[in-house]
């Protein structure tokens, strides 16, 4: 089986300071990989490099495109990469306002992404938008409301609907449950798990919350000072951590 994503030797420096270095992994279709580490460990820098938001200083991010097979997304043309970001890729930001158009209605936020890939029939766009709002548990009578009128959890669910409506194959998520109440987090986790399974999505999730990766991620990468110190099956890394830093991280979690 061809990996959906092959990451090779990614490095990014801010001047002399290391953002991330020597990062490489393969992600296969249907796999969810978590990246954990404390603030400043380089996990968000890495995600930005992978998702094309930040050019790395070296390395390759090879994606198995539908038309041309595996291609390095860092060397492809700008229009080609933009198309990829609108179709096969999705990015869920920690702060929903970074991923939403706050001045546009909920239905418009979802429909806009459909229009970006060529949908033109207003009735069908609206119908799909309402269907997706339902799947993320936003009532149909809120479709014309703007995201400002939504709670934080609703905004996050709207952002997910906007991202998934085009049927992407790879989703990048940056702290998708950060800043939400625990009850809202649980609802979002349940939703994400169902969508990953039903759509066969692959995902890369950056978080500092070990409980979130245990429930969502098949595999886990632990970062410290810009490098990967340990990786493996999620429950193996959490239950039998090999590296001193991971042992410290796991033993520092408060038990509820």
């Amino acid at each position, binding site marked *: 089986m061809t990996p959906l994503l092959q990451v090779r030797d990614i490095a990014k420096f801010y001047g002399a300071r290391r953002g991330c270095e020597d990062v490489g992994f393969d992600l*296969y279709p249907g*796999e969810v990989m978590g990246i954990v580490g404390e603030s400043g460990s380089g996990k968000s820098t890495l995600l930005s490099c992978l998702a094309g938001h930040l050019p790395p200083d070296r390395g390759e991010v090879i994606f198995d495109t539908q038309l041309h097979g595996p291609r390095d997304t860092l060397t492809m043309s700008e229009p080609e990469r933009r198309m990829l970001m609108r179709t096969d890729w999705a990015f869920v930001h920690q702060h929903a306002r970074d991923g939403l158009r706050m001045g546009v209605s909920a239905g418009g936020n979802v429909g806009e992404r459909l229009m970006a890939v060529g949908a033109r029939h207003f009735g069908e766009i609206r119908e799909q938008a309402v269907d997706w709002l339902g799947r993320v548990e936003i009532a149909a009578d809120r479709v014309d409301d703007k995201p400002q009128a939504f709670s934080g959890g609703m905004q996050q669910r709207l952002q997910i609907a906007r991202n998934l409506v085009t049927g992407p194959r790879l989703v990048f998520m940056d702290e998708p449950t950060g800043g939400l109440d625990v*009850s809202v987090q*649980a*609802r979002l*986790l*349940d939703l994400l*798990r169902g969508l990953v*399974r039903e759509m066969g999505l692959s995902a890369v999730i950056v978080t500092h919350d070990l409980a979130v990766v*245990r*429930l969502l991620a*098949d*595999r886990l990468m632990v970062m410290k000072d810009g490098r990967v110190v340990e990786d*493996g*099956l999620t*429950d*193996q890394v959490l*239950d*039998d951590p*090999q*590296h*001193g830093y991971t*042992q*410290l991280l796991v*033993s520092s979690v408060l038990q509820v």
Partner: protein
Amino acid sequence: MIEIEGLGKSFTLHNQGGAVIPVMTGAHLRVARGECVALTGTSGVGKSTLMRMIYGNYRASAGRIMVGETDIAGAAPREIIQLRRDTLGYVSQFLRVVPRVPTREVVAEPLLTLGVARADAIARAEALLARLNIPQALWSLSPTTFSGGEQQRVNIARGFAHAFPALLLDEPTASLDAANREVVLTLIEEAKARGAAIIGIFHDEAARGRVCDREVDVGAFAPGQAA
């Protein structure tokens, strides 16, 4: 179906002066299809550790753990993920679920992951919940608020939803009343009859005597005692 050879395990505690604690050496075990083997030994001797290593939860320090054609001790994460989906089931002592997910979904999930049609998966889940005497009124609720015994039965229903060729059972009859214990033992006997290879930890001696064909004393694999 399950073949273990020369298996060793030690824990290195980097934050406690790098202390290395050897817990197992030279462990070996074979379980054929249709056979149930009990792991025995005093508390702390490493029964659960051995079981977690077979599930790929703990990393082996030495040796081989063959489940079907896969060596768990050397397999890539995605091979283990696949093996856990279709071949190797595990009923742990603790239920770990996403809060808010209804019980029938929790039980049906392993089947849904395998691509079983939704209606069939739910029907199988409900049949198991009924057999394990979980009241129908609870099926649409999350098991996170259930009693210990109810959670244990939900966990067992989930573990038996798919007909895994290999099964690991950690104290499946603990905290169950006589009627439910009987149901679980019957489920184990049915799994054996269809050819599943089973490794179990049972403190309940009568249960062990009834479903297990052999016993393996894990104490024999303790470091310094291996013959």
